[in-house]
């Protein structure tokens, strides 16, 4: 079996394991390449009909291309979409220029997700994070318990032996489940290529620039690149000297911002 099929099989196993355990489950879709890959894997796991809702956390600062791509896929793949917004903070004018980036991410992403989890009484959320993205994410488990405050107890994570994932959480806790934790950035692109997955156009070069990682407009900078096809992107990543999230402002504010964001429940 080729290595992409191996990665895929492990992800599908985890997705099915998660669904077996938790019927109150949903998938978090940022519309980026990783969670779109995860979405595709969910379709595969259930032979095309995903039995749970897909959540999009809308900070209102996303790129127009992302909203368009989202709505096209929802129709094409017949998805049950939940849009999560922290309306109260949005009304108050929360943005990356109001206070710190940490605060903005925390309110418009983390707290918006908290509202969705509460409203739908979710016990598990599937997320498309990967170990090679960030040192903090490299310490994650496949099944990661969070308390009601979303706190990640990274100093005391459960043991995770072979493919046996912890299955029980307390009444007010939920699980973050990471089915593509073992994919690298390069693996994701190779998989997108093999599966002929549609992907947001922002990843492809226009006028010598492209986005390597996408999120909110004010906090994402494009990189210099002439990669206009998936093959060219793969070649570029193979030879690059910078890391994937180098264009993401929230990682830069302070060395431990990512750790603090994640401890607060950031995705």
């Amino acid at each position: 079996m080729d290595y992409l099929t191996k990665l895929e099989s492990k992800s599908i196993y985890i997705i099915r394991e998660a669904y077996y355990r938790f019927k109150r489950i949903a998938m978090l879709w940022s519309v980026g390449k990783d969670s779109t890959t995860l979405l595709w894997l969910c379709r595969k796991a259930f032979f095309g009909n995903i039995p749970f809702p897909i959540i999009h956390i809308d900070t209102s600062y996303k790129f127009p291309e992302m909203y368009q791509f989202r709505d096209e896929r929802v129709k094409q793949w017949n998805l049950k979409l939940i849009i999560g917004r922290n309306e109260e903070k949005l009304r108050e004018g929360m943005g990356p220029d109001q206070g710190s980036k940490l605060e903005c991410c925390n309110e418009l992403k983390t707290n918006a997700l908290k509202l969705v989890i509460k409203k739908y009484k979710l016990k598990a959320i599937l997320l498309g994070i990967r170990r090679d993205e960030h040192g903090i994410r490299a310490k994650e488990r496949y099944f990661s318990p969070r308390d009601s405050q979303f706190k990640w107890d990274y100093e005391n994570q459960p043991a995770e032996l072979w493919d046996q994932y912890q299955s029980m959480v307390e009444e007010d806790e939920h699980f973050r489940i990471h089915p593509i934790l073992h994919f690298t950035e390069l693996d994701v692109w190779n998989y997108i290529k093999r599966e002929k997955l549609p992907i947001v156009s922002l990843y492809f070069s226009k006028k010598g620039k492209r986005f390597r990682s996408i999120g909110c407009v004010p906090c994402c900078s494009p990189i210099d690149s002439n990669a206009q096809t998936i093959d060219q992107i793969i070649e570029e990543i193979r030879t690059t000297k910078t890391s994937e999230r180098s264009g993401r402002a929230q990682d830069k504010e302070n060395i431990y911002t990512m750790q603090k964001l994640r401890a607060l429940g950031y995705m």
Partner: protein
Amino acid sequence: MNEEHILPIIIVGHVDHGKSTLIGRLLYDTKCLPLDKFLEIQKSSESLGRNLEFAFVMDCLEEERSKGITIDTTQTFFKTSKRRYVIIDAPGHKEFLKNMITGTTQAQAALLIIDIKEGIREQTKRHAYILSLLGLKQVCVILNKIDLVNYSEYKFLTLQKETTEFLNQLNIYPNFVLPISAIHGENVAIHSQKTPWYKGPTVLEALDVFDELRVEEKSPRFPVQDVYSIDGRKILVGRVEAGKINVGDSLFLLPEKKQVVVKKIKKFLQKASTAHYEESVGIILKGRHYVRRGDILSGDLFPLISNNIRANLFWMDHTSYNIGDPLLFRCVTQEVSCRINKIYKKFDPASMELIEEEAPTIGEAEVADVLINLDKEVVVDSFSEIPEMGRFVLERNGIPVAGGIIN
């Protein structure tokens, strides 16, 4: 380079013997450390008033950096001219043993690192014992900090002999024993000029000698993970844990030993006639059968079907176990309530000594030979035959507290 292959390796050893430093060094020397990450590490090291700390590549929690220890296991990717690797860094402190075990269960080979000044210590022994227990037999020994003993060949040979003898007792026969300095990069990526007496490989060369797990043709095992009803048809979903399955194959449904025939193999948007080892698929059987999660489709009747299982286990939880306390046995997709009825023997892996025979309890970090009594029959194989079907986890109140191997 062969991008198809990724070998997961774990680095284990006593606290402060240099695990994280070696990994940082490997990433740096093979240019797998992005420039912005390097600058971040430099900044972080400076702010703590230290020289460049290669360990910060792996230890990126604030607590890990300020205390200079590894708390949790981390995985990072790295490549040589031969293939890709996932390197798993495991904490050396006894308190974080369950993180070390978590890391070890994901690896196919191990580097055991020993500070040449300190020699074999408590966690060196404990980690080696766990490698042996988990069947991880591909091991290289790294004698680190050779710079601190003036690159002495004598010191190297002495510890090499001692380490080899100790590992052989555990049935581990290391491929190589290497003298290195992780901090200065001696014998890591390039052969050191300071150890002219050493003719063996560098760490990178030694890594490339490890074999990937070979998949032998075995009789199939397909533990049923779930049963989906799609368009009125029952699809058994799961992953092939041994061998392969073809449409038309006649299999046994265990534990009942009922004979069934594979009618269809389902993959999304794909026509399939075979399900390969490690592949997640759906299976439709001919005829009507009552199938549940935890049932096993098997090509033969060799698995042990019993409600009494003898096994070796290691206890990971802080709270010890008393004979008779309820536990949950989990092996592939099987989950059955159980209890340990007998503790024949237990060992302290750090001293490698027998602690007690016919013991009433098992404590943290102890290894024991036990008899598990289950509420109903389970289907298992010997770990050496089919590893996936011969290893298990025990949970107490939903928390994994022990792992075990069936021989």
